[in-house]
């Protein structure tokens, strides 16, 4: 494929192509094309019943309005393109740094970037001013996340340093994949002096990022211009259409049919009239030239009436609808009741075309963490070596409710402790102070096994930049208890353990992903011990434990269940000492695997599996995630509005159910809460059927409507009508069972059973499953769905649902970027749906009624007059009145009503 230079073009037109291209695009709209057709008809003198301007004026007005809007948009794009393309950058040419414009940068150029510069193209990081050639970047423009990320060059290129001579002589071959739009993946190899080095995303600086905290860095252009990941990502977004849109299209088609019918009646009428009366009236009014029979006259009259009655087809309908939607979107943006003052976030309607659909929501799919809860994590409890910490007991051994008056643990022995951190159980501090080995190991693990970035701007003023708030909470906890994570380089981690600074060598990071659900680090302590520290989800980690921990496992499980029962998020931590020989062998194979071009991921995960086994259990952590304000009330109100709420969460069943109870989703009024946790397809089927039998025994009879519908073989998509259960039920299904339930033949069972329940909670689900569940309901139910979430794992769900809502909260901006509406708190959903959605829908419906009414009232006069004027296409009104009726005289009252009606 041809290599691109770095100039980008986001504009659609240039000066010469604007008119033809823009007109071509506009005439693809059916209403515009129809008016063009009318214009052509009017140019035929025998047919023309109205002067040409009656269609030209509205058409030109509508075209001009959209055209001007497009032109302004494109002009702005031209301006920004020009601005971006002309940004200066330092390029290495013949051993000299020369200033070049961005657009002249070529693939293979080496460029120098300085602090706060925008990255010019997708670069391979060669070297930088920071130790170990680290480079900090901010990716706000790329994915909206504002925390710093660190990139590191290969050691072999880092040596090049600032030496222009060496950089000029740099002569390697890079093989990489074709340009694609995956922001978080890159595979390639660098061949330098016969040796191969693996390249991955850690060494890439992507266009759109900003260099931070780094004086300078050098990079080699790999993808330029349109090939960059940023540009590849700015593809066309799929349009979501509302049901009103579809209704409108149907209506317009019906109107066309109606128009044709009216014209046909009038044409036949004209034929008869000309035959009966017009023939004899020729004394005073001879037939037009070329007309020699009544039927031919009728044929011409058909087209004349097509022109006369054109006002029934609403040319300004689409434009008006856009205006109304835009207006109603602004109302959402402006609403103070959806403004969150704490982080200065107003609600935002990112898509302006979906407002009225908000009033039609029937199913809400909600994420839990960060959506229902605040996603501000605090380390609450832990279990270390079979002992549970975190609860406070009084003298008699009774547990005390923790409130503001409860005495906090005094961390004054540790000057680096986080002042905001609060813990109430003194026994844990005692254990730390007593140098209890498992306790120390526990906190050491927490301070080592993570991907948090520390920032220490002033001595002792540590700030952690964590990508996941859970990690931040754990590291903060370890810090307060005296295991302060102080600094990180790619190869070392500095920890202050009980006042003593220790530097651990970081040998490998076995990173976290949604399949593994765990992460590990392998470190060498200053004493020389090799240890693997691992933390992860209990289900996963329990299977990797050494058999000798079985006893401890039992105790820890008890604690875990207790924690989960209180709605806490739990993680299990474990460690393993490694043999030197084995590790050397493993790290060699790891290196091989990580330089492989093909199947790198698979090979790596195999290696990870191999080393992460026979782990020794240390304990478990429990993190509290508080509910957001007003969530229970909101859920209650939404439920009253007959909206069904499904919670899809990655949490454990107990945690999920607990949250369900605490936010009023599940309550004691429910007849029953079914739990589907079968581990085979048949189990799941049985459980689902039993649940359904209890809710609606009739639904298994052959006489049941839906069963009859299934019997009938039809190619058409089956739409399952709503079924009424005999009470209020809830359903909880685990991700494991969900996987079976989403398979072909169980889909229907799942939908029928789940949709009868008032509340459905799916726990332990993967992002993909979230999307599948939404897809399932979309497929079988004629209902509008809304997905709300805040994290990257909700993106697929948000994109799948009819309407996606992003919570702009703690977990970055990805959900917001792919959403249609965004705001800061879950409780605003109530106002969005029940106030804005309802108003938008009512207004839109009233608007359509009013609009069609006025057009019909206007046009039917001509139809009626046809009967009195010999079906001769004589108009009743003045031509200018016809021309401007839709556009000027009647547009304002209609628009006004549809924007201000309450």
């Amino acid at each position, binding site marked *: 494929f041809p290599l691109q230079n770095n100039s980008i073009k986001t504009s659609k037109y240039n000066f010469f192509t604007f008119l033809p291209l823009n007109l071509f695009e506009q005439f693809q709209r059916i209403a515009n094309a129809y008016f063009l057709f009318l214009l052509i008809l009017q140019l035929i003198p025998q047919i023309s019943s109205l002067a040409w301007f009656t269609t030209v004026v509205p058409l030109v007005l509508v075209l001009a309005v959209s055209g001007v809007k497009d032109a302004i948009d494109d002009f702005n794009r031209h301006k920004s393109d020009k601005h971006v393309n002309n940004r200066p950058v330092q390029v290495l040419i013949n051993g000299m740094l020369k200033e070049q414009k961005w657009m002249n940068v070529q693939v293979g150029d080496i460029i120098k970037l300085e602090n706060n510069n925008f990255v010019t193209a997708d670069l391979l990081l060669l070297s930088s001013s920071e130790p170990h050639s680290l480079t900090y970047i901010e990716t706000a423009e790329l994915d909206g996340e504002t925390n710093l990320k660190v990139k590191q060059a290969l050691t072999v290129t880092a040596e090049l340093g600032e030496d222009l001579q060496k950089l000029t002589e740099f002569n390697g071959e890079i093989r990489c994949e074709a340009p694609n739009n995956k922001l978080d993946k890159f595979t390639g190899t660098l061949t330098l002096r016969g040796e191969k080095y693996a390249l991955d995303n850690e060494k890439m600086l992507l266009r759109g990022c900003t260099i931070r905290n780094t004086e300078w860095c050098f990079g080699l252009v790999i993808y330029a211009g349109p090939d960059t990941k940023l540009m590849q990502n700015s593809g066309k977004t799929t349009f979501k259409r509302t049901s009103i849109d579809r209704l409108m299209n149907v209506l317009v088609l019906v109107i066309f049919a109606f128009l044709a019918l009216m014209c046909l009646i009038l044409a036949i009428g004209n034929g008869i009239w000309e035959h009966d009366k*017009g023939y004899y009236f020729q004394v*005073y*009014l001879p037939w037009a030239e070329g007309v020699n029979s009544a039927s031919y006259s009728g044929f011409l009259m058909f087209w004349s009436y097509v022109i006369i009655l054109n006002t029934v087809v609403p040319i300004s309908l689409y434009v008006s609808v856009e205006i109304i939607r835009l207006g109603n979107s602004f109302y959402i943006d*402006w*609403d103070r009741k959806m403004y969150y003052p704490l982080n200065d976030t107003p609600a935002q309607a990112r898509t302006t075309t979906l407002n009225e659909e908000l009033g039609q929501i029937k199913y809400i799919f909600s994420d839990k963490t960060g959506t229902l809860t605040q996603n501000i994590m605090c380390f609450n409890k832990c279990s270390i070596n079979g002992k549970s910490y975190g609860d406070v007991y009084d003298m008699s051994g009774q547990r005390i409710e923790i409130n503001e008056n409860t005495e906090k643990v005094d961390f004054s022995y540790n000057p680096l402790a986080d002042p905001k951190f609060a813990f109430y159980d003194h026994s844990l501090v005692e254990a730390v102070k007593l140098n209890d080995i498992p306790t120390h190991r526990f906190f050491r693990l927490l301070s080592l096994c993570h991907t948090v970035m520390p920032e220490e701007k002033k001595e002792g003023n540590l700030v952690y930049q964590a990508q996941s708030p859970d990690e931040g909470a754990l590291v903060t906890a370890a810090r307060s208890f005296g295991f302060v994570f102080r600094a990180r380089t790619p190869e070392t981690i500095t920890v202050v353990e009980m006042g003593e600074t220790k530097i651990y060598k970081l040998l490998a990071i076995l990173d976290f992903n949604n399949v593994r659900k765990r992460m590990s680090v392998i470190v060498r302590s200053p004493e020389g011990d090799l240890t693997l520290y691992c933390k992860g989800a209990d289900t996963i980690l329990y299977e990797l434990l050494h058999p000798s921990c079985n006893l401890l496992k039992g105790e820890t499980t008890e604690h875990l269940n207790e924690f989960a029962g209180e709605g806490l998020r739990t993680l299990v931590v474990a460690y393993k000492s490694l043999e030197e020989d084995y590790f050397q062998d493993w790290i060699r194979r790891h290196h091989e695997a990580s330089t492989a071009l093909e199947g790198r991921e698979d090979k790596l995960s195999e290696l990870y599996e191999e080393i992460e086994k026979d782990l020794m259990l240390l304990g478990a952590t429990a993190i509290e995630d508080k509910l957001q304000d007003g969530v229970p009330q909101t859920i209650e109100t939404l439920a009253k509005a007959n909206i069904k709420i499904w919670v899809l969460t990655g949490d454990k069943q107990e945690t999920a159910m607990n949250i369900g109870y605490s936010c009023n989703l599940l309550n004691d009024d429910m007849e029953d809460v079914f739990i589907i946790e079968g581990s085979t397809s048949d189990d799941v089927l049985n459980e689902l059927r039993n649940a359904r039998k209890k809710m609606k025994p009739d639904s298994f009879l052959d006489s049941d409507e839906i069963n009859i519908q299934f019997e009938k073989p039809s190619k058409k998509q089956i739409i399952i009508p709503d079924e009424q259960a005999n009470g209020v039920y809830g359903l909880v299904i685990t991700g494991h069972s969900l996987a079976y339930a989403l398979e072909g033949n169980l889909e229907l069972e799942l939908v029928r059973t789940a949709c009868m329940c008032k509340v459905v909670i799916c726990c332990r689900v993967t992002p993909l499953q979230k999307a599948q569940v939404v897809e399932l309901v979309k497929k079988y139910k004629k209902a509008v769905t809304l997905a709300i979430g805040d994290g990257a794992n909700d993106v697929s769900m948000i994109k799948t649902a009819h309407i996606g809502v992003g919570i702009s909260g703690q977990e970055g901006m990805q959900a917001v970027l792919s959403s249609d509406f965004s705001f800061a708190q879950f409780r605003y959903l109530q106002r969005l749906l029940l106030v804005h959605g309802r108003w938008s829908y009512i207004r839109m419906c009233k608007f359509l009624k009013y609009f069609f009414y006025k057009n019909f009232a206007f046009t039917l006069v001509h139809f009626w007059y046809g009967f009195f004027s010999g079906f*001769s296409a004589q108009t009743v009104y003045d031509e200018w009145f016809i021309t401007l009726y839709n556009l000027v005289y009647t547009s304002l009252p209609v628009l006004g009503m549809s924007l201000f*009606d309450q």
Partner: protein
Amino acid sequence: MKNKTSFLPREGEAQPSRCPDNSAFKQQRLPAWKPQLTIASVLSSFFLTGAFCLTVGVCLVLSANSVREIQIDYSDKCSDCSKFRENSSNWNKECHCSVNFTLKEDILGDVFMYYGLQNFYQNHRRYVMSRSDAQLLGRNVNIQRSYCAPFSTYRNGTPMAPCGAIANSMFNDTIDLFYSRNSSLIQVPLLRTGNSWWTDKNVKFRNPESYNLSSAFAGTARPPYWQKPAYLLDEEDERNNGYVNDDFIVWMRVSAFATFRNLYRRLRRVRHFAEGLPAGNYTFWISYNFPVARFKGRKHVILSTVVWSGGSNPFLGIAYLVSGTAATLTGFVITGIHLKLRKKKTYFQRQ
């Protein structure tokens, strides 16, 4: 003053808050009126509308009925002339017929004389278009490019003045009214001018400029169905000729329906007729020129007075009566439904 500085925001907070304005418009708190549909308001509005419409309708109908009107269909009474006119070779021969009628009572006040046509489609699109407004303004235009065809020029190229189907088909019967008083016939004095709209007479119609009217029309020919050229339409009044002739102007204002009447003459209230038309025997003396039998048309002559609501057209009054009745009836129906459902009202309250 010193204290105030401490309230100033620090630099970091200087950027404006993204909090939306608290204006009535943006917060959708503009005053709105939402009518509450109570039984009292609904019923009273129906009954009030009904009462209003019925009152107006009754007034209109009464006033329309008070109009004195005599309408005589003379297409059959002059059947000899009608047949005579069917033969187009007789176009330049005169044919007269007289129609007698008796007034039992005086018709007091202003009396208007109309001619009425039935089944004459003046509202046909091609008929309506077939005129040249520029020509009628006295401009020298090439009428080939107007919509006058086929009544624009003769074969030899002489343009018709005025051109077009409307002008060509101008109603050209002349109707005179005689009053028999003491066995002697007195011609009723009638006004030929002042029958058209002021704007038509003074703005929309103009004769071509020239030293006299016949030279102004030189180079043009009368339309084929006309017996006289345009500048000789009124032989008695020099100024009522050409395009500004009142009969012509009235005819050129096409009617919206196929059955219509046009104002022809007004009674000149002098001598015997100062109070209107006295009772007695009258005769219409008609010079029958306008053939209508081909297309089954009818011709009428009408004498009528006017009242404040116009002529004798009862339509508006009837429309008011009908809608008034409909509103009242609906009011009664709603009352009935209300009385019947009142006991079940709890159903609505429960919601």
